[in-house]
């Protein structure tokens, strides 16, 4: 309930923030929403020397659809902003599906998508969605900005490939080429629970054919699972019952769940399978209706 001592700075420009992180040499942590970091401080699972509070940095709270159709989510864009966004429902249904399922409504007023990616909890919902959508993170450090694909962003449970001096300033979802469809299903025992298992499915279709697909899994491995084989099996043709089943099989195979008090590994694998089928069927049915 009571954190140990740490230093605290609240810079008002990004270069100062980066400088503080660089000085900290890995013992400084960025504080944005704080909805994952502060609980860890309270339980003393984390005891950094310095917190660098970035809430005062300008120009980071955007949720913007660019002209090219890509979506840029700033480091200070809150989950609640994403939940409320009507443009997201229209442009990226997969993201719209997950926004209300992150934690609970109060945590969502403060927590951030980018923060969630940086926290790299294997049970983080956003990481699966951003993975399924083939997104990337823009990081800024002493050497300037760079782009890190989401698939290269997480290096293990609660570990990212950000350098100690870097701040993730935004997440970017690439512009869809075909018509985007998708969703997120999460088995949670109640609101605010971590996922027993979660599945993000994102597809783009041109005509009847799936031109791009992404499937990523929450809570069934040491980090977010990119079920790329399952996704690839869907591209190049329409969604069929057999194709859906095959993709679900491959996704379940890709999962590496642990047995724990949320369920056995077999059960979690089964949920992955079931959710992939349900999501893809829903997409297929919606397409049929539209056609």
């Amino acid at each position, binding site marked *: 309930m009571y954190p140990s001592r740490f230093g605290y700075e609240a810079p008002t420009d990004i270069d100062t923030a980066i400088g503080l992180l660089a000085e900290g040499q890995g013992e400084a942590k960025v504080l944005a929403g704080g909805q994952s970091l502060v609980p860890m401080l309270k339980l003393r699972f984390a005891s950094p020397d310095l917190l660098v509070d970035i809430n005062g940095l300008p120009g980071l709270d955007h949720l913007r659809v660019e002209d090219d159709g890509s979506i840029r989510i700033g480091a200070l864009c809150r989950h609640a902003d994403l939940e409320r966004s009507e443009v997201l429902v229209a442009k990226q249904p997969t993201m719209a599906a997950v926004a209300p399922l992150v934690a*609970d409504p109060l945590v969502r007023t403060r927590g951030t998508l980018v923060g969630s990616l940086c926290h790299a909890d294997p049970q983080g919902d956003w990481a699966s969605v951003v993975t399924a959508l083939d997104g990337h993170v823009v990081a800024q450090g002493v050497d300037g900005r760079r782009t890190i694909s989401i698939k290269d962003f997480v290096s293990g449970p609660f570990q990212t490939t950000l350098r100690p001096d870097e701040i993730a300033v935004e997440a970017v979802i690439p512009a869809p080429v075909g018509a985007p469809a998708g969703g997120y299903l999460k088995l949670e*025992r109640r609101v*605010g629970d971590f996922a027993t298992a979660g599945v993000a499915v994102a597809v783009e279709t041109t005509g009847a054919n799936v031109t791009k697909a992404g499937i990523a899994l929450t809570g069934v491995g040491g980090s977010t699972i990119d079920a790329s084989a399952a996704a690839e099996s869907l591209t190049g043709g329409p969604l069929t019952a057999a194709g859906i089943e095959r993709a679900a099989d491959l996704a379940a195979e890709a999962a590496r769940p642990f047995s724990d008090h949320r*369920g056995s590994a077999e059960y979690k694998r089964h949920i992955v399978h079931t959710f992939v089928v349900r999501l893809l069927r829903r997409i297929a049915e919606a397409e049929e209706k539209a056609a």
Partner: protein
Amino acid sequence: MTAVDEIKIGGMGANRRRVEDDRFIRGRGNYVDDIVLPGMLHMEILRSPLAHARITSIDASKAWEIPGVRLVLTGEMMASRNLAWMPTLSYDTQAVLATDKVRFQGQEVAAVVADDPYIAKDACEAIVVEYEPLPPIVNPTQALAEGAPVIRDDKENQHDNVTFDWEVGDRDGTDRAFAEADVVSKISMHYPRSHPSPIECCGSIADFDRSTSKLTVYMTSQAPHIIRAAVALVAELPEHMIRIVSPDLGGGFGNKVPVYPGYVISILASILLEQPVKWIEDKTGNLISTGFGRDVYLEGELALRQDGRILGVRMHTVSDHGAFFSDAQPSKFKIGLMHSAFACYDIPAAHLTARGVYTNKAPGGVAYRCSFRVTEAMYFQERMVQAAADDLGMDQAEFRRVNLVRDDDFPHRTPFGFLTDSGQYGKCLDIGLAAIDYEGFLKAKEEAKAKGRLLGIGISTMTEPLGAGNSREYDILGIKMFDSAELRVHMTGKAILRTGAKTQGQGHETTWAQIVAHELGIPAEDITVEEGDTDTAPFGMGTYASRSTPVAGAAVAMVSRKIKAKARKLAAHLLEVSEEDVEWELGRFYVRSAPDQGVTIQECAMAAYSNMPDGMEPGLENNAYYDPPNLTWPFACYIVTVEVDPGTGVWDVLDVVAVDDCGVRINPMIVEGQIMGGLTEAYAMASMQFITFDAEGNCIGSNYMDYLLPTAWETPGFQLHEVVTPCPHHPIGAKGIGECATVGGPAAFVNAVMDALKGTGVRNIDMPLLPDRVYGAIQTGQDVSGAPPVKTGS
């Protein structure tokens, strides 16, 4: 002048809005953690990370060095003052701070007192404790196995892990019934460990004042007088120099009845430092170490006749009490009122054997929103009944109807020997079935099944004993379980009422005044109600096990009647007639032969101070100590419908119907609030809420990420109905209600899910019915046990 309207003055039956709300909605509640005393220090407890280990060394030197630390206490320091161990409410002993061994994960090992809790926590982290791990026991089977390590090797004559063996009923008669049975229905199950988990954790502010030699302890206690007695015993301070004050409590549900080590340590710390010491535990401390509920295993059998009559009941229970047997329950009943099971059914023979065991887990358990194991009793009962009906191929409602005690069969001797005085169980069931549209649902279920959807309906009917209890049979540590009320009427007819109960959200400040209004015609808003300060409140055994309305409420009625008797004499004096010529209507005495000649109760009160008849003692006040002649027997029928998703094992509640009879309802709004709260706890336990342990003895469920409470989103809505059968022996015909839905509810939810799974071959899934358990059961057709896993191999 006419009688006042009872509803207008906030008498019985009024949905009087609550007095206590005025401060709570303004954020002006006075909970223990809100209280600040001059010079107050803060205490934190260091807890054991291991479930079973010898302590080889404790080095607190670094902790003492931290600026702001005032005191570091270890078991050794407590032992030198004879305070390392304390007696429990069940005649066992419990470690205050561990000395030789730790016996459960989370056990108190050291304590730090500092200027603020942050520093106290820093200092706790600086204490270095060396442990030598011992094999942990997490499961009664392990505890009872040959060669199992003895957990309580501190006790001289303890050579195993058994706390007690107990039995009740008629063994021979029951054996005969089973021999004659057409069908024997058997079922085994585990009612998992659960925790009352009020949102507010436990805590105390101990304030020993050297100048007066008086100890005042502000404390989260549902039973402040019991605490005063316990502190007098443990700390060897004189009883009159101990004042326990329980201010506003953020929920209790039984969790705030026991005496916890934190209270004792804070008291000692205050005595040593001569400054107030505040200890407020965190949620982890609360969940991992304080009074849990349940954790009982059942082997149950019903002897059945082909036509559906139950001929006999056999129950064998094994209860897991953790490392110390600290149950707060009547001393004569080792497994509480488990033998109240089947009280609503007419069954000629029954036999119960019960065994309690020690394990490496938190000590307990408490009566978690129940009347001493009655939750387990009624859950086991309705699960056994469900299985029996299925075994006979009978409809669930019909099977119950065949066996329920009939309305005209009272007083009735229950299978295990209780005496029930009244009931309309059949009517309760009828109302419930009609409300849920039983026949309609059964049809819908069939139709859904054809489409691959699994619907289910679950029934739970029960009567349970509330209001412990009569002095012949009920005592805790030898203290009888009466309760009390003291009423003083001021000269202008306003009054102050104090009782020995202690509200934690039940609304006593509102409802007790309604009883007085009913008896005396004094408007409820003219009556101040106080509870919780042992210096001013008359002695009572506190509020838990739904005993307040049955016992303290009765005392409130009785003291009001004593006041009324004196007021009648004053009225006669004022009206200048003899007492026999005086009649009463609500709020007013009048002359029988001249009804418009009368005096109000307020005028009588004034007379008690200014115009007494010769020889009468002035004043208008009295007290009453009520020893209930019997328990009260509320009864209920709960029906739940669900849909189970066979693909995931997730189930959703469709409808919940509750039909409750708690006798006369003092404040129907508050009664309904209690029922809805109880139904939510029932839903929670059935679906997600439990504490378990891994094979290493690590507690899973020691914080709100793992100990799941349903939110407003999952919690279903409730449809409430009432039956009113006044309790024949209670002064106002009331019974208890606080726990009924928690007691009877879980089986309705579980029976519904099991009904949806009918045909899969599954007989039992232990609560909570988590998705993976339900799914696993559907897939394998096998029962699912929730008992903690046992480590295999060495």
